[in-house]
């Protein structure tokens, strides 16, 4: 048996020192012991090391268009903006309260409440895309890889930045009016990765930047053949330019760009028109989000609110309907009239188990996987819209009514075989074009933007809006309520930003 009692103090101390030293050195760790890294993320530096990696940063933005934001059920990316825009208009009708989603937006309360998530989302979502685009624009030139790839990657980032600013400035700024200086506050212009807050640039400055980015994008994307329609190519960039020009009342550019944006694409067939607006391989789609099975969108999907058939509480109780006033303007021979059921009894309209049928409910949007799966491709730009832009722009240029009517004819003849070339001119022609625009783009997120762009009032009277549900029926054109409030969260952290009139 070992015992240490015999040791002298001195020996003992030495022995202990030895043992201790040995043990402590043996167990002290290697230098990299404290280096750890996540497995579900990569470092920012690695993303921009090569162009091959940087492609993933572009794909990351595409995906942002259909992920859930802030854990909110009404915020499934771009489709949230689309639904908000139609909820604020008069053409979309809620048929019941159901589980209440979007109802206070429908009542014009949310976008005028600084603490509501509606202004918050529309501000945050686009600025998040801008931040990601800014990282690409700032870092792509230094990446290893072919210049052609760098141009394409950068071009898409520029197009995204332009689109984001365009979507946003229309909400938070005043309407762009080409006859004025547009020097009222728009949104902050942040063009590079930074933590330094910026004040709101003027509406004019924001549009100048949007146009610059689009022009750069068009140059950079020339010659790019994309893998699929979730990517932004030159058609998309030109389509965006057409939209922006229309909003800026720059009719010539709008008409020109709308024409160019549809090159290589065609209108869809009537059968495809009744196919549920959920497939981005449709020949008419210029740009859309592709969704796949293992990227489920559950109850925050566009189709969880706007389709007729997905099994959500919202759709079961509140299938979305068209304003009967607008419905009655549709020709009976028009294929588009088949998208809505005025009776609320047509069993050809697919509904979820136990779902309600309501008069004027839609089947424009159908969840392709049936009532159990909410994923479906979401359209962001179609050829039909380009014809409408071309027609409207030409009708407003003056002296090109015939060409305008012809552009409208190409579109509407496709939808309605009995349609004949319009004999309207002037304002009557413009009105006809705008009516077709309302019919054609129903539910695709244009209505609030259009009403504001056109400086028209909100008018929900005379149709099927319910008094106690809609509450708000009239908002005068140009009212301060057409401006979204800047979210409180931005005011809290950015002292340079001013609020819109409360």
């Amino acid at each position: 048996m070992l015992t240490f009692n015999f040791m002298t103090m001195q020996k003992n101390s030495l022995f202990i020192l030895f043992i201790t030293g040995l043990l402590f050195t043996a167990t002290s760790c290697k230098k990299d012991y404290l280096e750890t890294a996540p497995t579900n993320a990569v470092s920012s530096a690695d993303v921009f090391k090569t162009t091959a990696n940087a492609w993933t940063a572009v794909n990351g933005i595409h995906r942002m268009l259909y992920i859930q934001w802030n854990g909110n059920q009404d915020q499934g990316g771009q489709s949230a903006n689309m639904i908000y825009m139609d909820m604020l208009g008069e053409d979309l009708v809620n048929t019941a309260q159901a589980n209440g989603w979007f109802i206070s937006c429908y009542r014009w309360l949310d976008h005028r409440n600084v603490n509501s998530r509606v202004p918050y989302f529309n501000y945050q979502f686009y600025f998040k895309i801008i931040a990601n685009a800014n990282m690409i624009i700032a870092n792509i030139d230094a990446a290893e890889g072919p210049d052609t790839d760098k141009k394409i990657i950068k071009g898409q980032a520029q197009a995204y930045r332009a689109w984001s600013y365009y979507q946003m400035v229309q909400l938070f700024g005043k309407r762009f009016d080409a006859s004025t200086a547009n020097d009222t506050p728009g949104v902050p212009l942040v063009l590079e990765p930074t933590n330094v807050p910026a004040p709101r640039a003027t509406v004019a400055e924001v549009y100048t930047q949007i146009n610059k980015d689009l022009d750069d994008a068009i140059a950079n994307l020339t010659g790019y053949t994309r893998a699929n329609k979730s990517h932004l190519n030159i058609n998309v960039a030109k389509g965006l330019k057409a939209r922006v020009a229309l909003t800026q009342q720059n009719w010539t550019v709008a008409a020109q760009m709308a024409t160019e944006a549809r090159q290589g694409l065609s209108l869809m067939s009537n059968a495809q028109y009744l196919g549920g607006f959920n497939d981005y391989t449709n020949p008419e789609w210029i740009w859309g989000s592709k969704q796949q099975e293992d990227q489920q969108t559950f109850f925050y999907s566009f189709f969880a609110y706007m389709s007729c058939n997905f099994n959500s509480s919202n759709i079961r109780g509140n299938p979305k309907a068209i304003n009967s006033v607008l419905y009655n303007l549709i020709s009976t021979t028009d294929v588009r009239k088949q998208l809505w059921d005025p009776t609320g009894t047509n069993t050809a309209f697919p509904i979820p188990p136990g779902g309600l049928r309501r008069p004027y409910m839609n089947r424009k949007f159908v969840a392709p996987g049936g009532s159990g799966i909410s994923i479906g491709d979401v359209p962001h730009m179609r050829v039909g819209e380009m014809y409408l832009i071309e027609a409207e722009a030409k009708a407003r240029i003056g002296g090109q009514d015939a060409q305008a009517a012809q552009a409208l004819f190409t579109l509407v003849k496709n939808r309605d075989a009995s349609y004949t070339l319009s004999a309207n001119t002037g304002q009557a022609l413009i009105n006809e074009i705008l009516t077709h625009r309302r019919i054609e783009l129903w539910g695709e997120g244009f209505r609030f933007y259009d009403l504001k762009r056109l400086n028209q009032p909100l008018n929900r009277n005379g149709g099927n809006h319910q008094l106690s549900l809609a509450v708000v029926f009239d908002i005068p054109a140009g009212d301060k309520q057409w401006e979204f409030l800047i979210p409180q969260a931005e005011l809290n952290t950015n002292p340079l930003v001013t609020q819109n009139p409360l």
Partner: protein
Amino acid sequence: MLMAFMLTAFSVFAQNKTVTGMVTDDKGAPIQGVSVTLKGTKTGVMTDADGSYRIEVPSTAKTLVFSYVGFETWEQTISSQNSISVQLKPGQSNLDEVVVVAYGNVKKGDFTGSASQITSKDFQNRPLTNVTNAIPGSAPGVQTTAAGGSPGSSPGIRIRGFGSVNASNDPLYVVDNVPYDGGLANLNAEDVETITVLKDASTTALYGSRAANGVIMITTKKGKKNRNTLNFKLMQGVSSRGIPEYDRANASQFYVMMWESYRNSLLYAASPQPLAVANQNATNGIKGLLGYNPFNVPDNQIVDVNGIFNSSANLLWADDLDWTKELVRMGNRKDATLSFSGGNEKSDYFGSFGYTDEKGYIIRSDWRRFSGRVNINTQPTKWFKVGINLSGAVNKSNQASDGSSTGLVNPFYFTRAMGPIYPVYLHNQTTGEYILDASGNKIYDYGNIQLPGMPFRPQLGGRHNLAETRWNQELFKRNTLSARNYADVIFTPWLKFTTNIAVDVTDYQGSSYQNQIVGDGAPAGRASKEASKTTSYTFNQMLNFNKKYGAHNITALVAHENYDYNYNYLYGFRQGQAVEGNFELTNFATINSLTSLTDNARIESYFGRINYDYEGRFYATASYRRDGNSKFAPDVRWSSFWGIGGGWRLDREKIISKISWINMLKLRSSYGQVGNEGGISLYAYQALYGVSNNAAEPGFRQSTLPSPELTWETGKNFDIGTDFILFKNRLSGTIEYYNKVTDRMIFDVATTISNGQYTISQNIGSMYNKGIEVELKGDVIRNKNFTWNLGINGSTIKNRITKMPESNKEIISGTKKLKEGQSLYDYWVREWMGVNPVNGEALYRADVWNPSNSFVDGKGDTVTNSINNARYHYAGTAIPDLFGGISSTFSYKSFSLNFLLNYQLGGLVYDATYASLMHAGAYGAALHTDMLKRWQNPGDITNVPRMENSKTGVFDAASSRWLTGGSFLNVRTITLSYDFGKSILSKINASGMSLYVSGENLYLFAKRKGMNVNQAFSGVTSNAYTPSRIITAGLNVNF
């Protein structure tokens, strides 16, 4: 054991005579393991199995001290005799109680820090599935929330206030001396010997970077030398809801108020209808909006045009309106533990096997646990000692779906929010009879169109919580294995090397299924599986030194430690069920999600401690720890933590030792700096892009910005207190003051939204918590047959934020606004100004004068009906003025009765669940009976606005209206037990046997019926599993 060894080791000093004797308890039974020491020295021996001892006594020694846990310490003057036998009284004196501290133990009398220790006898008869439920009310300075009623739930615990805003406020849990990463519900409460709450910095400093929120040390049982025992314990109980439901309006009241809600939305619309028209439309249309007519009168005759309920209307399905009837059951709880322990000169052992099965009072909520533990220590030679403490648990639990306060699968939300007119089962809408299926069974009414002509329920239509709860599955299985191994090398009596290797492994398997028929999974049916494995290793090497130089006694420790945490996660989610009853993923067609990840975190540490005392009068301690942590960037990842403390035993000073009524009086104080890293993301300093694939194409999006300076929060904790025992050990207590300052407090500072809104965790804030803690324990009556002792504790917290980020001087979050000079839990809400008697509108104090929505009321206040123009104000705090517990034990002969109360005075509760029942008239949603006091006619003076469907969200907006006094008194537990006498024990050859009944959560006194007043530190209530009341009978036999 350590103590025993030392005592033996020190008994080799000058010897003059030998004293022998025997130590027995009050019933004359010998006690083994009693420490017999020479007063004022560490020299001593222990009694052996027959209670005898033998000690060498120097001629200078005057007094022998006999002490043993659970008995009063006895001092015996040494006279000329060589034989001293004593009888120890069971009792109060806790001076010699061993307090478990970081990396060692200390006798309470010598302890200079602040700790509260709860021992097994305090909770042994309580039905605790999760042992942390022993803490509420039992420890001063510890604020707790009520654990949810779901089996296995633990209470929230805050030690001396709230240390952080964005990092964790949870204490560090240490099980058998090693930080524990498993859930505490893995532990069998029967295995636990002590729960020690370490509060001050000098006591916690040895846990360095993880100590700032305090430390809870859980120590399991060990065998005792020469005391072989076998213990069997059986508990059987029932569980039920601990807090009643809110009072809600009945069917006729509800219908009338909904009529009014609709009528008013027509009457007060922007383009209003005339009163008569609106009345008629409401009478004709209300059934259409509510969907169901539960009465035996036509749809348009339920409520007349004057808003009066039809007196001849009777309910068609009165017996089928209670949604909780089949969701709630009489829960039950079974608990059995067999344990055995013992030891000899060289070894000791403890083993146990336990089974706990608790069924909650909501169907499909339960917890079943098998647990086992072996704790063996042996010292085969003089210089080497080794031990292993191995435990495992197999847990299986069905979980109630109460995770989301407004989740449709949450039974508490669903049943609370369901209007009182909707039946659980399908009924013939005319006759009220049940509609039966082909087999003659009732059919759940999902509230959608299941059959032609059936109505649609606007509230939660197409959903059915009872059916979903029955058909869905939320299940987990969790297997844990914990090992604590150590080896001591004893070089000399005063120097010892110890190494510990500890491993905790948790295997978790979650299984979730949503059925095809109704709910989130319908119509496809979907299932997910989650598998995770958490492994953490702690490996340390320590040198312990303990030596006496005359009157100077020094113990010291130097050590090195590694901590390595590894987490593996795999998740799969599919939908499209093929075959019924099979919940494996292969049975589902579509892959919704398939993902995995691995996380690693590591800490490396060097630490040491020196304890010094002079003649047992003056004490000093100093601790130091240096930690390197992988969460932080290389340049800042190493930091030092330290603590110092001192104590003065005044009772050992001559002047005071003469005062007969002072048995012990100690002054102590400590200060130190400790860290907090809990809750900070494992990779918080790194700039990262997260996965963001676009369909089949790989993608990443920016997720975090770099934060190279990020490091620990620093807790600077000061503490001063006095411990005393007075009046012949009849009264003991502690009074102390603490000041806990958090510096370098972490804020997750968001870049502004227009800069992409990336949060960066930065050390930029400061906050303090100050307070007083008082604990008193006394024997009120101490007779031969009857004793009554009473313990009471109370604590205060003053919490203030002293520094906010420059870029975010004010942060509004929910009902709170963080700001310098305010506390973490100060309410920031609209200021409620009552109801306008003219039109019944909700009024708030106006922020600015705006002629379109503001006016000056009768009191001269400018008020508004616009929530956007409503002024926010600080409306009080959720932090109570005083909180604590009261405990008491009455013993009469063989009976004993004890109770524990838990109280809070002051503080406000934001009763959000009540607010959701006080809405302005969402069709179909249940209403509180307080809505009966709503405004109805001009001139009505009330605090409840008018019903109006289109004003929900405006009239019932978040405001000070929902703040309610938070004082409460909770009867946490009452136990009545009976100890069988010797005559019975001898017949069954047992050494002890007791029978008892015990109840948990027996009653809650609070300001509003239904309000779960102690639900959250933030004071905000939500729909969650209401705490359960468990009443148990138990039998405890010792052999």
